């Protein structure tokens, strides 16, 4: 998934911020509660402490305060202990307020970022499911898994930390700076001098870290891919006794991930705490220039202490900025990886003005069709074939001749590189994908069974199917008796990737699944049929039920299938070399004879016996 996809940070940020729109209300609440959570407490608590000192602990003679007067008047409390108790109680009350704001604030924050993640995951899934086969064929599961998981986590931090804190921190910084300026503007300007350096270091950092982060994340993909492979293909690995070699391969990726992550960490670890120097310089400036002013008498000691106290309020946000920048950068890099999936790989697009196919008769026509899988040598060349409605066509050929490619063009798994494929006279590229694929049933070699119940698997193509329909299809496909014998019947879950089913059972599930959708055109690959003596007749029945009244393209290696087909197409090296009835081809096509020979010989011998 290396591509030219390279949007700027700014574009990515804008796009990320766009996701907040539906949750604008929540976002505003987040910022308000953030202020309630920290603002109220940090603004008021120091004031109360001041009151405690000035009016209770070291009473300043003659000083007046409306709040203290209010307490004295309304509650008729006059002793110092009593007022202390009230004031301390106020602090406690503020803490309670902060406590509740905190919980509310975090709740909204969680709601917003999780909702956005949910939207984004949904979009990712939607994007994936609408991708072309050539895209899906290239992309690795590991790449996708890490996007759904670790990249989403990075984006979570972007929303929950960066977006929110940036606002609050800026506010806090602004207020603190304003206070400093009001105390002593000259001193304030001197001490704030180091602050712009934050932005200089930030720029330096951001420009360097992005590439390293991306490298680490991409390495994480490779690591995940090896992991997934190690898990899915563990039987093979064991079978070959290659556990150690594979483990070495895994270790290599694992270590590369550590190395690449550390490369990012090295930059981060220098940058993130670098603001302590800027902050320390600021404090030192306060000390030196403020101290000199105190010595010169232009500043009181109290003012200096106050100045120092407020200056430290700036340090917090400044330090936080560095952290936020990390979250931000991390989020943006992950966003790039996710948006890339959204934006790239739509080479079998839904037509601009999709034509809704009516119920098909089932005619298929290939006109001068050539095809290659993205850049590799041509798989099909100048194929012309016309299939009439209801015709059963057997497609036979040597391994790698292009049989599967031919059939995959009909439901538009791929688009032709030249020529045209049409059904009932409509170019498949003009039809809406749903109306096209919804009328084509496909039973291929690689049968995928979902890790759900039998019922769910059977009605996969027609979710609204009734139980009766499901049972009827299972019966037609000769799966009913077996499923029914299970303790939980149709509600029995099937193991992942159908591992707990035999090949024959999987095939029959696929047949039943396709029967339910009642397609007009069938694409069938009967070469993997794990038929055996007992079920051969039944499987035949199942397939016959499937074929009845439908146009069918049957990829086969079986002589018996060819014999019963209306038409046999022999493909060799991407070209149709013969078309005709079984008997005719036996006489005319030498290649056909080669393909059929091994299946006829024995019976001749038998006949001779």
């Amino acid at each position: 998934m290396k591509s030219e996809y390279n949007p700027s940070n700014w574009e990515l940020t804008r796009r990320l911020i766009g996701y907040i729109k539906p949750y604008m209300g929540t976002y505003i609440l987040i910022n308000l509660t953030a202020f309630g959570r920290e603002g109220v407490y940090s603004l008021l608590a120091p004031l109360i402490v001041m009151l405690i000192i000035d009016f209770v602990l070291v009473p300043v003679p003659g000083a007046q305060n409306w709040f203290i007067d209010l307490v004295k008047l309304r509650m008729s409390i006059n002793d110092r202990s009593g007022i202390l108790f009230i004031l301390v109680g106020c602090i406690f009350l503020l803490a309670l307020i902060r406590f509740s704001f905190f919980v509310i604030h975090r709740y909204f924050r969680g709601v917003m970022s999780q909702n956005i993640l949910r939207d984004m995951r949904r979009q990712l899934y939607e994007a994936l499911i609408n991708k072309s086969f050539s895209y899906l064929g290239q992309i690795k599961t590991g790449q996708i898994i890490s996007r759904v998981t670790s990249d989403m986590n990075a984006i979570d931090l972007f929303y929950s930390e960066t977006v929110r804190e940036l606002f609050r921190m800026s506010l806090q910084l602004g207020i603190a700076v304003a206070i400093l300026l009001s105390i002593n503007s000259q001193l304030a300007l001197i001490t704030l001098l180091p602050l712009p350096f934050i932005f200089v270091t930030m720029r330096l950092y951001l420009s360097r870290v992005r590439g390293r982060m991306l490298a680490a994340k991409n390495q994480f993909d490779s690591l995940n891919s090896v992991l997934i492979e190690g898990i899915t293909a563990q039987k093979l690995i064991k079978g070959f006794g290659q556990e150690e070699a594979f483990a070495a391969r895994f270790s290599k990726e694992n270590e590369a991930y550590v190395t690449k992550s550390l490369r990012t960490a090295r930059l981060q670890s220098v940058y993130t705490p670098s603001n302590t120097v800027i902050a320390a310089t600021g404090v030192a400036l306060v000390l030196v220039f403020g101290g000199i002013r105190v010595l010169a008498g232009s500043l009181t000691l109290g003012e200096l202490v106050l100045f120092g106290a407020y200056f430290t309020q700036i340090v917090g946000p400044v330090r936080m900025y560095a952290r936020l920048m990390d979250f931000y950068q991390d989020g943006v890099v992950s966003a790039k990886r996710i948006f890339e999936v959204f934006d790239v790989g739509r080479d079998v697009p839904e037509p601009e003005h999709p034509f809704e196919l009516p119920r098909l008769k089932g005619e298929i026509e290939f006109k001068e069709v050539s095809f290659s899988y993205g850049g590799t040598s041509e798989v099909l060349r100048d194929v012309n074939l016309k299939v009439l409605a209801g015709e059963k066509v057997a497609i036979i050929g040597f391994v790698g001749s292009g049989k599967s490619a031919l059939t995959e063009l009909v439901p538009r798994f791929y688009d032709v590189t030249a020529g045209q494929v049409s059904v009932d006279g409509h170019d498949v590229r003009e039809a809406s994908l749903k109306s096209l694929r919804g009328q084509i049933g496909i039973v291929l070699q690689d049968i995928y069974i979902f890790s759900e119940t039998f019922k769910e698997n059977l009605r996969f193509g027609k979710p609204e199917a009734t139980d009766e329909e499901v049972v009827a299809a299972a019966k037609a496909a000769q799966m009913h008796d077996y499923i029914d014998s299970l303790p939980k019947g149709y509600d029995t879950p099937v193991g992942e990737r159908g591992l707990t089913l035999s090949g024959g059972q999987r095939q029959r599930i696929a047949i039943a699944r396709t029967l339910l959708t009642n397609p007009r055109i069938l694409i069938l690959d009967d070469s993997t049929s794990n038929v055996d003596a007992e079920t051969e007749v039944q499987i035949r029945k199942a397939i016959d039920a499937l074929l009845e009244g439908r146009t069918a393209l049957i990829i086969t290696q079986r002589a018996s299938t060819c014999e019963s087909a209306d038409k046999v197409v022999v493909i060799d090296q991407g070209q149709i070399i013969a078309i005709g009835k079984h008997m005719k081809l036996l006489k005319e096509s030498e290649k056909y004879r080669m393909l059929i020979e091994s299946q006829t010989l024995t019976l001749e011998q038998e006949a001779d016996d």
Partner: protein
Amino acid sequence: MAEFAGRYDVGSLESTERRFSDWGLVKRIIKDYMLRHMSLVVAMASIIMAKTTLVLSGPYIYKVTLDTFISGTPEPNERWLADIIREIAQTLGSGTATQWLDIVSAGLIYVAVGIALWGVMSLQEYYLNKLGLNIIADIRSDFFLHLEKLSQNFFEYGNTGKLVSRVTNDAEALRKLVSSGIIGVVADLIAAVAILGTMFLLNWQLALVAVVMAPIIAIVTTTLNRFVRNNWRVARQNIASMTGKVQDLMVGAKVTKAMAQEEKSLSDFNKVNVANAKAQIKAEVTANIYEATVGFFSALISTLIWFFGGQQVIGAYLAIGDLVAFTQYTTSYLDPIQNISTFYGEIQSALAGAERIFVVLDIVPDVKEAPDAIDFPEGEGVVELKDVRFSYAKDQPILKEINIKTRPGERLAIFGPTGSGKSSIINLVGRFYDPDFGAVTIDGVDLRRVKLKALRRRVGIVLQEPFLFQGTLRYNLKFGRPNATDEEMIRVAKLVGIHDPITRLPSGYDEEVRERGSNLSYGQRQLVCLARALISDPKILILDEATSSVDPYTEQLIQNVLKAEMVNRTILIVTHRVSTVRDADRVIVLNNGAVQAEGTHNQLVKKNELYRRLCEMQLVKV
């Protein structure tokens, strides 16, 4: 293959039950993983010490400067630092010192401390990352290696998507546990203890107030703890099932698209997606309540100190300056506790992740190498199943009293209906499972007595599903014997007829195989897998419907190749295709887990009804 007999049940792996205590998990991480990187741990410890000192020294320098040089109220115990500052000032002013220079040099020291702090923090950050990454790499590696050891049945019922989530998400969460969790907590505790010590020196009565609250906080938090952790565990499981869905999509995309069920698939995913978002929010909220509670208590402590300290000031037992200093210390004492609670959510999430990993790590594989396992003696490759009984689940016998013995150099076909136990025989000969009764032997040696590696060198298995690994075709072909030469590889590739198609690819043998590769057809991939097994040079070759998608003509050629290649070797063929079985030296017809008939093709056609019927159906007359 047996249906639904779970020796391992995904359900129980994914249960929400607690299996480890927090402390048990932390102890295990420290003992098994942190101690492996002792030097990094020691480095971290010294960095934390240095950092604490530097952090505490900044305000001290500030205070001393203020007291000594600005307000002119020096305290005797601060003299040593004041002297140092004066000395630096004198060097700066080349002998003549002014108050002005004193302050400047104090400022310089302050900046120097800041720079030192930067350095120390950089190191801390770096080593923290390094330690975290290394530990996580170790855990991931342990997990992975353990999976490779686990027996077959674990995978039959395990959901790979969920396993993947464990090894990616959960391991990543663990990294946080190590960095912000264990190390962060230790650093904070050190700081807390140092500050508490200072507080006791200042005023022990007030210090007691702060200390007394600690057990109350502890009780409240441990109560909340349960909820927090449970919620995080649920959240982690939700992520896992979402990952599973996405993996399902990736593998099953063809079916989904072929049946135009994109919308349904999306709505299914969305259910999991929404559930996940809800679980995450719930977990976060409970974690937040926890954090807020700790914040509340810290405010309570401050309040109490202001109250009792205030009383003392009123009673003139305490100077106002000391009270102010004390409250400042209280905040910094509570800071570490606040920090711990801030990371508490993360830590809990990580602990839930750790638990999910350790649960798998603790599963003991049931096919294990005997401690005194032997290498295979040289032999002819005779496979024997003696009185073998086998089942995946207790009362569902798959094989009943099987007796099969191959002859030296024989090509034996195993033939039988669905569920007859064909695949189980392969699982037993490859020792992916052990029989319940009886023995499987090769050249008279019980498989349970030999080293697994030796066994698998001897037995080559080609499965029906032609799985190719990521990497080049060369890597795939040499997978079973990486040190095979290119000549051998090409020779075998030519034999099975894939050399030409491979050379037509843009990069030939160096072409990258795609995951759901479209650069080779299904049949061609089966041939690559067959070549892979031949290159690994086994004494016994097992073909499990290995050429099901290869046309009969090519298959015939390959059968002849195998005959020539496997002289004096054993071939076990499991297939349904008569054209494949026909050339075998002997055919065993398996039915219902028992041997029903055996003989050559010609014999069976005559004596076995089922066999003949099948032949008639598959073959055509001319």
